[in-house]
């Protein structure tokens, strides 16, 4: 990984959250918002169905980066994201990342997460530090 340079892609992360994921994530994260777990409630506020937690999708972007760098959580120093399109269960999430800058053992990426054409996380950037 230390030979990464500008323009290099990191390995893609692909994950398909199953129908029960939002409930498990809600319990694990402590976020009780019913738009993520109750389809009837979600429809009552104008959504097509339950939506993924944005911070779950952000966790996939984080994981794409730590996976790419030897699976060491200490490597990830900073991650900033913008949540845009809504994410949905049972659709594959693809996280892509490209090296913007690599110098002195630090890597900065441009990264995003999408479900098909629906880019759910955009304008995201991660900063990593290599040993």
């Amino acid at each position, binding site marked *: 990984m230390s030979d990464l340079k500008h323009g290099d892609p990191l390995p893609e992360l692909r*994950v398909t959250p199953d129908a029960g*994921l939002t409930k*498990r*994530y809600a*319990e*694990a*994260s*402590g*976020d009780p918002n019913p738009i993520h777990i109750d389809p009837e409630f979600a429809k009552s*506020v104008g959504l097509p169905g339950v939506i993924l937690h*944005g*911070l*779950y999708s*952000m*966790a*996939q972007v*984080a*994981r794409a980066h*730590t996976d790419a760098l030897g*699976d*060491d*959580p*200490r490597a*990830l*120093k*900073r*991650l*900033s*994201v*913008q*949540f845009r399109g809504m994410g949905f269960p049972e659709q594959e999430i693809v996280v892509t990342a490209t090296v913007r800058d690599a110098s002195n053992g630090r890597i900065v990426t441009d990264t995003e997460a999408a479900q098909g054409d629906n880019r759910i996380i955009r304008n995201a950037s991660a900063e990593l530090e290599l040993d």
Partner: protein
Amino acid sequence: MAVNTEAIGKRWPAASFEVEAERIDQYAHAVGERNPVYHDPEAAKAAGFRDQVAPPMFCVVYSAPALGPAILDPEVGINLPAMVHGGQEFEWAEPVCAGDVITTVASCKEIYEKDGRGFYVFESVSTNQDSLETVRGTWTDIVRAV
């Protein structure tokens, strides 16, 4: 209706969170983190951690309780049904391990209006029991039609 900016600079009381191994395990499973350092104290110690370690994004679990009172504060005046989580940034420092007690303080950094939407930016700073910073978060909530 314009946004009320009086709450800029306000700080809310610190909230503490005891990190239990089971919560790390539960969170790591939910987000698909299978690295043994997140599940097995011995694997974590072998990798140089003090104890079973939390994935970086576990910070949302221990820092969110400090953000709740800020987002709900009538002085901030967020119209909750019209609110979406617009952006998020975390800067990590000391890793968080099972048995840690993390204290988080939230403050309001910015409130502004742009294109008819209200932007509410909060900062959270989390430290462990040894006063080492573990994460600094910037939380941007957007309210449609303010």
